[in-house]
């Protein structure tokens, strides 16, 4: 029989269960996951708000099979807001929106260790707010090479006057977001641009980068996943935990840290307590992604 605790957060009752259950092989418990979600909420919800959030739930722990939950759980409390988002052929799916601490606590209690977010906001699904470059290390490569490719991407984007911000994937890779926050941006345009930049990198860093998804192309290379910019795709949200052996999180990093990583001087692995500590010291390094307005260069003619 599982003990249930009901807590009140901002006027909402949130039911918490099985607090002592261990969710990570390292011993990190459900109480600690909820504690992290609640503490990171003021920073993380800025990046989740207004979006259709996909939950990746691990009720049996991070080392067991998890499952993606796109449709907002039917037993959700009535104060959890939902929005229609990309669905199947028969129409949209009602996703959860995660915009406050109470919803974060509720999601944590569902063992939704991973929160995945799309590039667009729910009330304007056709307009991506940012372009994502997802650096996925193939066999025999690591985050070090991801950082090197991110730096090369930065130079390419510099030339066309675009700035980007990086975060770790919380797993093995790295992601760079290039904020747009301007009307007229399209998923197709974002994907085309990311692919074009990826192909420039393929040529510049001969043999170290691929834009082809096929697994055979990947050993020894960084896969620049441009297809993450599609309408129906989601990327691990900033500050979300990952389901790995230890409670690592997708963590925004500075360009100095990316440089140190590329030089082999830093391993960009941050666990939940590190992330909270970083937010206290550095603030939200990813805040500019929500506000900086940039436009993609338009092809001449």
């Amino acid at each position, binding site marked *: *029989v599982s*003990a*249930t*605790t*009901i*807590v*009140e*957060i901002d006027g909402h*009752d949130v*039911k*918490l269960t099985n*607090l*002592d259950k*261990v969710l990570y092989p*390292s*011993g*990190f*418990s*459900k*109480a*600690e996951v*909820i*504690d992290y979600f*609640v503490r990171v909420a*003021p*920073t993380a*919800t*800025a990046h989740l*708000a*207004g979006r259709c959030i996909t939950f990746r739930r691990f009720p049996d722990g991070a080392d067991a099979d998890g499952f993606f939950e796109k449709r907002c759980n039917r*037993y959700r409390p009535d104060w959890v807001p939902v929005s229609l988002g990309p669905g*199947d052929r*028969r129409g949209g799916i009602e996703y959860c*929106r995660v*915009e406050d601490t109470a919803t974060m*606590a509720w999601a944590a209690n569902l063992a939704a260790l991973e929160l995945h977010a799309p590039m667009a*906001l*729910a*009330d*304007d699904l056709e307009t991506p707010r940012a372009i994502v470059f997802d650096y996925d290390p193939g066999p025999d490569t690591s985050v070090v090479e991801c950082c090197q490719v991110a730096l090369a991407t930065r130079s390419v984007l510099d030339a066309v006057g675009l*700035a980007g911000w990086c975060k770790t994937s919380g797993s093995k890779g790295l992601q760079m977001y290039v904020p747009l926050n*301007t009307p007229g941006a399209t998923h197709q345009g974002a994907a085309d641009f990311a692919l074009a930049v990826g192909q420039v990198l393929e040529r510049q860093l001969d043999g170290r980068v691929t834009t082809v998804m096929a*697994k*055979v192309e990947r050993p020894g290379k960084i896969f620049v996943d441009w297809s993450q910019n599609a309408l129906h795709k989601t990327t691990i949200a900033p500050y979300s935990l990952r389901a790995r052996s*230890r409670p690592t999180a997708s963590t925004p990093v*500075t360009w*100095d*840290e990316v*440089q*140190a990583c590329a*030089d082999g*001087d*830093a*391993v960009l*692995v941050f666990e939940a307590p590190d992330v909270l500590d970083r937010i206290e010291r550095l603030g*939200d390094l990813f*805040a500019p992604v*929500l506000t*900086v*307005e940039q436009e993609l260069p338009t092809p001449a003619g």
Partner: protein
Amino acid sequence: MARPVWSGTISFGLVAIPVKLFHAVRKKSVSFNQLDERNLARIRYRKVNAETGEEVTEEHIVKGYEVSKGRYVVVDPDELEPFMPAATKTIELEEFVDLDQIDPVYFDTAYYVAPDANAKPYALLAQAMEASGKVGIGRYVMRNKQYTAAIRAEAGRMVMSSLAYADEVVDPLEIEELAALDEVEVSDKEVLMAESLVASLSADFEPEKYHDEYREQVMTLIDMKADGEEITTPMVETEAPKVIDIMAALEASVAAAKASRDHHPAAKAAAKRAAPRQAAPTKATKKAATKKSAARKKQATKKSAAKKKQAAKKTTARKRAPKKSTATKSAVKKSA
């Protein structure tokens, strides 16, 4: 009518007794089918090539044994054929032992042994075994696999259990937490207290007392749903929960989890192993960052100053009310 899972003969010495085996335990877990929620059709699995994603037909599927990561030895069924135990259809009783000599950890699947055709030789063997208090040990083959069996008699009936092989039973000393028990010291007084606690809770074993409550609750839920009753929450509250402050609610559990990690011998070892890996890079980051940033600062400030000016120009030029997303607005307010 129960159906036999095996039929053959028990043989010992020159006697052969025709028998059938029936499962003595029927597992009762709730099993769900995966459905497509759009039309409730069943979900089917397809075998696909992990590299290409293409579906693979039966004729292309072979058996491979993973020798080391990513290295496989392919084995043809014909090569295995000579090792297959012959389906002899007999349970050869080789010896009789005392039941309490068999550690319960060895007992696996239980079967009722029933007489086939003539019941007399069966009844004779059962009574003889019961009278001597012995258990017959033998070997048999079921579905191409050889098993060891223990047959015991009770109330004139025979019950058979397949037995684990000795090399399948895990050595308890392989388990760190069990090996560490040798170092625990307890006083006689503590043992006495524990013994009296055990004595006070001693009872006759009544298996009927124990239920799979989860299965029963799930089946009730399913029955209600099948009857068309709308269920909003399957939660069964056992005690009236109190509304309390979240940090206070989590505090005890967080502290307990941390404490158990610190005291747990395995976790401690793991933490020790992980520690140098973690500590070193952080230090390196800091050092590298300060060194680098000092060197890069000159360049960087110049560059970023220029950029800032540009950015500032851009934003002023583009200042217009963001019509979209009240959500973002409120979020920005919150984070500010």
